């Protein structure tokens, strides 16, 4: 062969070739002996083809090379190395390279499953509380004492049950 396949993870000639079909798309991974060993291809209990697919889909030459997450300092090079992100905010920071990657990896690119209702409701509650506190200081500043008293009552009601869902 004039043009032997190169390993997807390094540049050595590939000797291990894997194929898997996910959502009717054929994925091929080619690895050298060393990477196949290192990735546990020989150890079925520790081996995940999807991890490899993930790394193989990350071509370092594609996309802006200097992407970096402001929240945790994670870089694209770190991702290439670990195959994992640094923090939840990385998903925003690396949005550009994420989309083509998800396309081949999953059934779809949009979440349609469970939503953490309580956590989201708690967020809304906190927003309402800070708005009430703002109202209170406004009322005091402009000497609307009846409004202030009412707002204070509302706030104390909220605070009695800080971690409960808001009344429906």
């Amino acid at each position, binding site marked *: 062969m004039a043009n032997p396949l190169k390993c997807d993870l390094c540049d050595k000639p590939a000797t291990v070739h894997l194929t898997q079909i996910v959502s009717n798309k054929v994925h091929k991974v080619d690895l050298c002996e060393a990477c196949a060993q290192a990735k546990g291809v020989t150890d079925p209990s520790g081996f995940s083809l999807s991890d490899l697919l993930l790394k193989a889909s990350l071509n370092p030459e594609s996309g802006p090379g200097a992407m970096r997450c402001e929240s945790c300092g994670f870089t694209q090079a770190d991702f290439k190395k*670990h195959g*994992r992100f640094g923090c939840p905010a990385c998903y925003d920071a690396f949005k550009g390279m994420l989309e083509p990657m998800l396309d081949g990896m999953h059934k779809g690119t949009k979440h*349609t499953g469970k939503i953490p209702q309580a956590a989201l409701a708690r967020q809304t509650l906190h927003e309402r509380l800070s708005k009430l506190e703002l109202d209170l200081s406004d009322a005091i500043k402009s000497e609307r004492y009846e409004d202030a008293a009412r707002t204070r009552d509302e706030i104390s009601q909220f605070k009695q049950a800080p971690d409960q869902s808001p009344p429906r």
Partner: protein
Amino acid sequence: MTIASLIASPSELTDAASNKTAIVLMTRIRLARNLAAQPFPGWAKPAQRTRIAEICTAAVAAATPLKRSLNVAVDQLGELEKQILVERHLISRELSGSKQGSSVIISKDQTVSVMVNEEDHLRIQVLRAGFQLKKTWNVINELDTALEASLDYAFSPTLGYLTACPTNLGTGMRASAMMHLPALVISSQMEKVVRAVNQLGMVVRGLFGEGSDASGSIFQISNQTTLGESEEEILKRLTSVLQSIIEHELNAREKLLEADSGKLFDKIGRAYGIMQNSHLLNSSEAMNLLSLIRLGIDLGVFPDANRSTIDRLFIEAQPGHLQHAQKGEFDPAQRDLLRAAHLRSEFANFVRPDFTLINSNGKN
């Protein structure tokens, strides 16, 4: 609860065996969850990992199914203890090798376990004996909702639950079934099944060995993708895949009996003989023999009541459990002696096979 008392207690997998667990031994669902605004475990600094573990374990230990549970840091566990938890499917190999700041909370009945600071902040798992995807989902869904009441999960409306690895995005859910498929293995159909199942977006993995010829003929089938479908849709697809595998296994059993029952009976009879008389058994051979005896039970050759013994032995014949029972560490050659001795004593009073009792369709 302590690790010692947990190890001494019977587990869901060995105790609940019945004819309902004939082909699907176990159903398991795990959810990957992370805290918002915290680095993922693999990228977190030691102090951050400790802080994350404190937040997570406090919330988890307070959840109803995990009251009076085992709650232990991974670095407090001995090698053998960790190995036993792996063999019981309660922790992953990855967690057992992890550094400071990782811990696990396991319910008293060993059906619920939560790993903290594995690849994600939380890996919640519920397992049930038999084919019980719906019930397992209800239990884990409820626990997840309870945890979310005190934990702020990292969540995006478009990408769903945010996980360290993008392969788990969306639902963060991996649902699986452990299946005993001896007839498909004996009739060399497993490779075909693996390919067909892959095409449906599901993954097949041998539990104790290589791909399509796993020792013990026990396979784990799970969903490959997590984003773009709801939990219910994933479970529905997995259920229909599992049902069709069950169908194929039953057909394969019927064909084996029709085509050459003598050959099949010989395999089962010899397995029984080796169990009663051997002095050296490696893990792989032991799994294969247990698998044949289990097939014999499904076919009616041995009483149904013995299935739970076999399921217990599948776990007890593994290295961690063997060594723990003997209170020491042994090299593989010594383990083969111990394994054979243990199985010999278990089979000394195991009822003899009666091949006249065969139920021709292989269905209980």
